[in-house]
Structures are given as structure tokens and as C-alpha cells.
């Protein structure tokens, strides 16, 4: 039995699943190589080629399967290679290591010591993926599959129980039962607002107007966030299955996947997956012989951040200018072409089949009251283990940053973590034990957002951070609401003043007043959170703002207008490395004698600091170091 003919019933899917499982179970050795974007940059494609070549040379094609998969999550250490069934794991694999890994690990079941992952904190060598601290502290439901799936192979997905949830729904449930199941699970929108998904489906289902539409929001624009991309790239069928289940429950016949044009691989993978699913009879007309008609179309976004906002997304989908509009009416009442439309985030759709397969109680078992299930965060910035982490709702930020993330590199101090993307807020050290759920984050003056976590260390200037994100929002505001367009511009100007030493004590009061007005008056989620980066840093790091204004001091040494570079006499050995790299030729001094920086000509590029091996170059600001 294979996929030559479309699947006409759940029984046929079951049979196919059985055949696929059987085919792969007899001492089936598999080597999974992460081909997520991070690992591809690290050379994963050449690693895949090397394994394929070595294995064909040895004539082991029958025995060993080489599987290029989606993102495993541990992007810091790419390219990642894991082996099943042994569970051995090698990070930062190079093409030249392929032969050794095949000979030793796959054929003789012994580890290659020099390739093993070493815990940076204990320096202990770890052989199995499950024991790596980065993975050990996570609860991976959606991401776990990424590591075992060939995203371009629908059979692979069916072999791990794919489309079983859909078959179950079509065979044994009615739409109301499906909606009740999703409501009971407490699944809340993973795009940031946290609206109960089941509730949204219920409202849409009850609308008298026909036809109904589904949209998968994959317009993931937050800098540093890439969980939706990784799901679409690594496990596109999970999203399709989730949407099919949604279509059955809501009574929709057409769905859209609105994905960023900047995600070419995700577009390619999801397009292929849709075609495969259609050929297999799992999408399109009369899905699995049940009479359900539902088809999907991929629509690419044109690069506007604001189109991640649902009403702007719908406008864009209709071919209009991506501009939010007043809600209500909500999209569930009047959405795409004024018809009821359910818009859910990629991660939300991907959770649906799991809830159907395991039951709502299972899902409620993770997380906190009011925030059920797991959430994927993209942990980036000044943290040892950069990557995607999936944890139950309610774990603390400390657990994510220190236990999973392995703390701050180079022995630096943790300073802040920014949650919720550019319109989110920064949380200080004192809030490390805050549980991440929708409510707790809101209380602390930030938002869950789609799950970006940007870790900052002591070398980060919080005023500069606020300025950066405010500038981002200024540029990405659609410009419709005066409060948002002009407000973000004025906030950025005031922050510029502070960063460049023109700040006055009046600036802070004005910033606060303006920030509240911007958040209050604007129409959509972008404008209503546009002042968050500034307000949250002002709330938690007011002393830094005051130091910039009163003492002209940037303690992190970031704001160029407020810092000076000097060379310390006692450390300088006159190697002249600094004067060679100085682009403005403002470092003077004889070879082997003290060098000095002519401050007036210095452009503060920091080149001298980077090349000095003796630590003689010092940044001073406002009289302090």
C-alpha cells in the first residue's frame, strides 16, 4: 500500500500508517540532520551530501536513512545531527566527520568522543540529545517532531501518526464536539493576544453568513523570532491537519496561509505539503471520503510588519493596503470579503491535532490556570544557548534563560529580557522569577507576543534599546492613526535627545505622558503597544535614563555621543595595533611607547578596543568607567 492513490477512508489511512511503520521498524537506522536556516548557514547541506556519499560508498543505503529535517531548536550549536534509535547527538558537525560517525556510531554503536557536546558550565561530555541541558528542561510537543521528520515527505508524517487526528474527527466526532474539545483544552491564541481559540471557532461557526474562511497567520515579523517559520519549514503537515480539523468544526471550505515573502523556504515547504496532501486525498474535495471539502492557498505577504495584525492581514489578503480597521466587527463576524473568518497563528493550528489525539485534559495538564499547554519561544540575544525552546506555560524566565539558555556568555551579568517582540517590554533581574503566562506578563507591563525572548547583558544600554525598538515601530507603523505615526516619531526624537546628551529632566515626564497617550489613542495592537519598549524601560531602568540626562553618562558605554575612548598608560605597551586600525587616524604615539587618542577627531567606532590585546583601551562616560 502506498500513496499512489488518494486515501478514501480513515481505514485506508490506518493501513498506510501500519505499512509505513512496519517498513521502518526493522533495525532501521536513521540519521537526522537539521536543515533549518541556522544549520544551513553552518553548512548543514554539505553535511547531508557527505553522509549520503559515505553511505552510498559503503553500500548501506538500504540500512541507513539520511533524513534532512526541519529545525531542531538548538541553533547555537548547528549543524546538528541526531541518530535514531540510539539517540546519540553531535553538534557542530562538519562534512569531514561524516565517515567517522557512520563507521563508529551507526555501525558499532560507539560515540566519537571529540564530537560530543560539552556542557559549557560543567564541561561534561553528553552523548544523548535527551540529556543535553538545553533539551532536558524543555517540554517539546510540537518541536520534538521537527527533529524526526522529513518535511518534504508526507509518508514520513503519516508514519508518526499524522492525519490521525483528522481521521478521528471526520469519523467519530461532530463539529460541536470538536469545538467543545478545543474549548476544554484551554488553547489560547499563540500569536500574542491569547484569545481562547475554541471560543473564536464557536463564534464563527454560529455566524449565519456563508462561506466561512480560515487563515493561518504566518506573517512573523518580530526581529529575532522564528518559531512560526520553523514549524512551517519543519512540519508543514501539522499545520495543514490542524486547519482541516478547524475547517470541519467551523464549516469552512477555503483557507489561506498568509506567509512572509521573506520566508522562501517556508513558502516552498508549505506549498509542496499542500500539493502532497491534495494528491493524497487529505485536502481538497471529499477529504478521506467524508464529504468534507476544504482547500488551502498560500498567499505571500509583501513585507509590512503591521500585516501580522489580523485586520490589516485581511486587507492585504483582499489585495488592499495593509491597514488595520476598527474591531468590532471582528473577523469572526466580518472578515475576508466580509465573511466570517477565523485567523489563528501557525503554532495555534499546529497544536490542534495534538489536542484531538491526546484529549483536552492532556493539554490542560501543561501550563497554568488560564494559560494551558506549551509555548515555543525563540531565545536570542546575549545567551549561551540560542535557539527555539518549547516549555509549558508558567515556567519562570529564570528557568528559560539560565537552565535552558545556559546563562549569559563571557561571564557577563544578566540585565534584562525583552518579551513579546518590538512592541513588548523589557523585564529586569528582579522579575526573573516571573512565570511566563498571558496574565503575569501583562501585569508586568509587557506582553507575551508571539514568543520572542531577547536576552540582554550588562553591556546593553536600555535607553538605546528603547530607541531602537521605537524606531522600528515608527518605520513599521502603517501611519493611519495620528497618535501612532506622530507619537512614535516624537518618542524617538525625545529618546534621540537623551541618547545624544540633549536630554532635560522634562523629557522623562513628557515621554511618559506621550507614551500613555499613544497606547490609549491608537487603533490596533501595534499602536496600542508602541510605547511599551519606552514605558517598560523607563519603569524598570529609570536610573539609567536619569544618568543619561543628568550626568551625561551611559553606563553600558553604548551611546556614542556620551562616551570617550582613552588609552590607559599603565597597560599600553605601544604595539601600535590600535593606530593601524583607527579609520580616522586619531591615535598617535611612537612604536613601543604610550599611544593617545585625540578625542576631538575620534569617531568612536570601537576598532581600537577590539584589537587591543592588553585591555588598555577604556570607554569612559560622564566621568565614570
Amino acid at each position, binding site marked *: 500500500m502506498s500513496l499512489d492513490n488518494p486515501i478514501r477512508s480513515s481505514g485506508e489511512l490506518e493501513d498506510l500508517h501500519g505499512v509505513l511503520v512496519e517498513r521502518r521498524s526493522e533495525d532501521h537506522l536513521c540519521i537526522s540532520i537539521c536543515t533549518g536556516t541556522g544549520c544551513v548557514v553552518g553548512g548543514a547541506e554539505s553535511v547531508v551530501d557527505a553522509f549520503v556519499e559515505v553511505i552510498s560508498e559503503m553500500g548501506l543505503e538500504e540500512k541507513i536513512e539520511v533524513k534532512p529535517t526541519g529545525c531542531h531548536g538548538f541553533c547555537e550549536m548547528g549543524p546538528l545531527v541526531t541518530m535514531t534509535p540510539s539517540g546519540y547527538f553531535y553538534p557542530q558537525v562538519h562534512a569531514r566527520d561524516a565517515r567517522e560517525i557512520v563507521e563508529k556510531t551507526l555501525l558499532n554503536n560507539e560515540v566519537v568522543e571529540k564530537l560530543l557536546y560539552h556542557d559549557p558550565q560543567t564541561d561534561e561530555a553528553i552523548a544523548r540529545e535527551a540529556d543535553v541541558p538545553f533539551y532536558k528542561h524543555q517540554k517539546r510537543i510540537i518541536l520534538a517532531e521537527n527533529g524526526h521528520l522529513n518535511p518534504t515527505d508526507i509518508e514520513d508524517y503519516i508514519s508518526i501518526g499524522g492525519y490521525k487526528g483528522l481521521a478521528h474527527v471526520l469519523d467519530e466526532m461532530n463539529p460541536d464536539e470538536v469545538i467543545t474539545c478545543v474549548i476544554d483544552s484551554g488553547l489560547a491564541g499563540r500569536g500574542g493576544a491569547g484569545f481562547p481559540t475554541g471560543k473564536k471557532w464557536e463564534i464563527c461557526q454560529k455566524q449565519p453568513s456563508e462561506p466561512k474562511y480560515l487563515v493561518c497567520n504566518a506573517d512573523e515579523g518580530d526581529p529575532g523570532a522564528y518559531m512560526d517559520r520553523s514549524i512551517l519549514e519543519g512540519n508543514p503537515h501539522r499545520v495543514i491537519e490542524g486547519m482541516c480539523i478547524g475547517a470541519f468544526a467551523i464549516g469552512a471550505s477555503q483557507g489561506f496561509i498568509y506567509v512572509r515573502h521573506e520566508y522562501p523556504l517556508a513558502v516552498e515547504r508549505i506549498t509542496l505539503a499542500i500539493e502532497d496532501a491534495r494528491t493524497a486525498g487529505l485536502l481538497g474535495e471529499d477529504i478521506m471520503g467524508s464529504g468534507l471539502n476544504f482547500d488551502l492557498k498560500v498567499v505571500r505577504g509583501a513585507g509590512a510588519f503591521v500585516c501580522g495584525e489580523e485586520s490589516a492581514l485581511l486587507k492585504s489578503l483582499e489585495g488592499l493596503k495593509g491597514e488595520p480597521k476598527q474591531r*468590532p466587527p471582528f473577523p469572526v463576524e466580518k472578515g475576508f470579503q466580509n465573511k466570517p473568518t477565523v485567523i489563528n497563528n501557525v503554532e495555534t493550528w499546529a497544536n490542534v491535532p495534538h489536542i484531538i489525539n491526546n484529549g483536552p485534559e492532556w493539554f490542560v495538564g501543561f501550563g497554568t490556570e488560564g494559560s494551558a499547554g506549551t509555548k515555543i519561544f525563540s531565545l536570542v540575544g546575549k545567551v549561551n544557548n540560542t535557539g527555539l525552546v518549547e516549555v509549558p506555560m508558567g515556567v519562570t524566565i529564570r528557568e528559560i534563560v539560565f537552565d535552558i539558555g545556559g546563562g549569559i556568555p563571557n561571564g557577563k551579568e544578566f540585565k534584562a529580557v525583552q518579551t513579546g517582540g518590538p512592541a513588548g517590554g523589557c523585564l529586569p533581574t528582579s522579575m526573573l522569577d516571573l512565570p511566563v503566562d498571558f496574565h503575569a506578563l501583562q501585569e508586568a507591563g509587557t506582553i507575551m507576543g508571539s514568543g520572542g525572548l531577547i536576552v540582554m547583558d550588562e553591556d546593553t544600554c536600555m535607553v538605546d534599546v528603547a530607541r531602537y525598538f521605537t524606531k522600528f515601530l515608527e518605520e513599521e507603523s502603517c*501611519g493611519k*492613526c495620528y497618535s501612532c505615526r506622530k507619537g512614535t516619531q516624537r518618542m524617538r526624537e525625545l529618546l534621540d535627545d537623551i541618547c545624544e546628551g540633549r536630554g532635560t529632566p522634562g523629557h522623562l515626564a513628557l515621554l511618559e505622558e506621550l507614551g500613555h497617550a499613544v497606547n490609549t489613542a491608537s487603533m490596533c495592537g501595534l499602536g496600542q503597544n508602541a510605547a511599551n519598549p519606552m514605558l517598560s524601560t523607563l519603569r524598570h531602568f529609570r536610573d539609567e535614563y536619569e544618568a543619561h540626562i543628568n550626568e551625561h553618562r551611559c553606563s553600558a558605554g553604548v551611546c556614542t555621543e556620551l562616551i570617550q575612548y582613552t588609552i590607559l598608560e599603565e597597560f599600553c605597551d605601544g604595539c601600535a595595533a590600535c593606530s593601524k586600525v583607527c579609520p580616522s587616524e586619531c591615535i598617535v604615539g611612537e612604536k613601543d611607547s604610550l599611544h593617545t587618542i585625540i578625542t576631538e577627531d575620534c569617531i568612536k567606532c570601537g576598532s581600537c578596543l577590539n584589537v587591543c590585546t592588553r585591555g588598555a583601551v577604556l570607554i569612559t562616560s560622564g566621568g565614570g568607567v
Partner: protein
Amino acid sequence: MSAKVINITMNGLPMEVYEGMNVLEAARIMGIDIPTLCYDEGLSSYGACRLCIVEIGPQDRTKVVSSCTYRCEEGLEIRTHSKRVMDTRKMILELLVCSTPGSKTIQDLAAAHGVITARFKPEHEDCMLCGLCVRMCKEQMMATAIDFAGRGPDRRITTPFDEASALCRHCGGCMFICPACSSRCMGPDADTTLCSSCLNLSPSCVEVYDHQQCWMPPGCGTCIRPEGDYLPATGRISEVKTEA
């Protein structure tokens, strides 16, 4: 508009309105003055200027929405002049007056709301992108010769591809409705950021006194100035208060 009548509460007063009517219309029926820049009865609501914001919802979880785009619904509670609303309106007017000081409409609104500081760097924009001209052209003149282009700081109103549009009949409707073009502030010093000269005229050209139901002689102005901050006999507020 359907004929169904629904009940709402406006500033604590019960009121019956037609379903589907927007909050701004309902308030105006009650004689409540809500300032607007981008609204016109003959055009569709857009919600760009954010001056017509009102606070809605039960006391413990209110939200602020633009009244021109928000439709009345059964049981809706509305506050049109709450502190949160007034503070925000004032800030928006300060933003407006600092960026588009040449519009008399804006100067008057700022004065009427007691905006006596202009704390942002002065700019001289001729357009605040309220979009009245765009809707006028499209909905009343049936031309669609102009529309918005760009986003964020690049947002502007223009013809397609910035070329002269064949659809434009030079009717002037856009200029007629523009709050910046049609009433350019021709005060003594039109281009100072916060003119407010009209406040010192007698009788004042601003309806601020009627508006606040004050029976003091015109031009007293104490209600919109901080206590003790009296104007010099010939001075203008802009000279006294503007931190340019």
C-alpha cells in the same frame, strides 16, 4: 441603517439610538461636542486623527476607541469627556499643533482644549494625513484620483505613481474639505508653533468660553492658564510658554 432602536448610556444618561449608528453621531444628537479632524458627515468614517476618542465599557475594564468608527451596540456605556480621554486628546492636539501649526482648525482646537505648551520640536507640515481629501475624491466626486501611499514616516497622499492623474477633474473638492488648506491660520504670526493669539482678541474667535459654559467676560482666559500665570498686557501665550 436598520430601524431597530437600542439603548446606550452616554455620560451616565440613558439614550435610545438606532442600531448601527456610530458613537460620534449619537453624541452629537445629544449635543455633546466631540472634536474631530478627519470626520465628515458626508463621508465614511476613517478614524485617523484619534481626536474623537471616547472611553467605553463598564467602569473596571474600559477601553478607548475612536467614536467615529465605533458602532453603538445594546447596553454600551460611553464616556465622552473622562480624564483619560481629555488627557489623551490634549496630547494629540499638542502633537498636531507642533507639526501642523499653520492650520487654523488645529490652532482653534488646541486653544479650546487648553493646550498651552508646545514641547516638541516645531515642524511645518501642511498635511496631517487625515484622509478627508481621499474620501472626498472617492466617495463624493467619484474620481479616486488620490490615495495614501507608503507607510509610517513615508506615508503621504498622492496620485498613482506620483504622476498627474487622468482621473482628476480639478474639482477642488479635496482643497475644500482640507482642514489645513481651507483655513490656513492667518494670525499675526501664522507660523509660530502655538499661536493662541485669538485668545487675546476681544471678543475671542475661539468658542472656548461658550464651550466651557463660562460667564466671565470674554478674553479672561484664566480657565485655560495655570493659576497665577497671567499674560503680559501685549504678550502672547506662545512667547510665554513655548519651549521651542
